[in-house]
């Protein structure tokens, strides 16, 4: 999942924005757009030295002025749950779909490419996920998932494994056409 889309799914989360000037703004994310412009609610703006400047109900931050965003670490686990649920939904909805079945369509070259890669490797290797499975990278929290593959990046790999019967049948059928 691309960073901007990840931000879009974090609406309502408290976060800290660090601007290029060094100022920090604490607030809850209200909205994001494709250029990383943000609207925060209940924002507190402070200088890097720590002197609190001002509190605002609503603040609009231009994306070009952002250095980085800092959020709570546990958010990633929540996000993964959300994604898994979404994917299961889409697998069910798009069962009859074709090649694009595995691409949930949420932006990004990463996913589409892996979708392509998956379908290739699935047929050759009898349906396991593609490259990342072979490399067996063990991210920290990934051990709960299938074979320790990466998180967002390998979303499509994961989904293939979860519904092995369904998607591989689809893939094989499609490729045989």
């Amino acid at each position, binding site marked *: 999942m691309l960073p901007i889309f990840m931000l879009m799914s974090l609406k309502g989360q408290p976060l800290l924005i660090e601007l290029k000037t060094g100022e920090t703004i604490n607030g809850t994310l209200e909205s994001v757009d494709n250029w990383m412009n943000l609207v925060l609610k209940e924002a507190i703006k402070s200088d890097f030295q720590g002197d609190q400047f001002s509190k605002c109900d609503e603040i609009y931050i231009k994306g070009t002025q952002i250095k980085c965003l800092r959020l*709570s670490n546990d958010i990633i686990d929540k996000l993964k749950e959300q994604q898994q649920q979404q994917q299961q939904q889409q697998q069910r909805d798009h069962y009859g779909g074709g090649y694009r079945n595995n691409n949930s369509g949420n932006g990004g070259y*990463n996913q589409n490419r892996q979708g*392509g890669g998956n379908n290739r490797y699935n047929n050759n290797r009898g349906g396991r996920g593609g490259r990342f499975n072979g490399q067996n*990278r063990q991210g*920290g929290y990934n051990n709960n998932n299938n074979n320790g593959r*990466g998180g967002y990046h390998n979303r499509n790999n994961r989904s293939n494994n979860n519904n092995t019967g369904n998607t591989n049948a689809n893939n094989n059928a499609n490729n045989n056409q």
Partner: protein
Amino acid sequence: MSQPSSGGSNIEDLYLQSYSFTTAAAIIGSVDRKVFVLLRDGKTLFGVLRTFDQFANLVLHDGIERIYLQETKEYAESEKPELYVIRGENVVMVGELDIDKEDEAIKDYKKIDFKKAQTIWNEERKAAKLEHFNESEIFHKKGLALPYLNTTF
């Protein structure tokens, strides 16, 4: 690099084949690995790289900031690991860490409080900026120019 040597064995080659942009694509090899990121303001962040895009916007899981103080051989780390979403234009470099050799660099360094280290480091940066400014003045008087200090501090 245009063709993989043997099907599936050189995975990075396959990726590069299909990417229409080549600059940020190299980051893909570092996903889900521990990396360090150097930012334009001089900060060094450590964490597990989760995702990125063509602008090199990065998402770092379990990210901490580490400050190195060379003169006094001290270092400091931020207390709590956080999820960092870094805007790509502020990134100078991203490097994969070798977990075994990770602690060799700070072997002889003493760990100190993070806030203290921050203040010391900020002073150092201010001093460096002032020094650059003074040097530029001298150069300008002679009709020469120093290279632009392209950092955001």
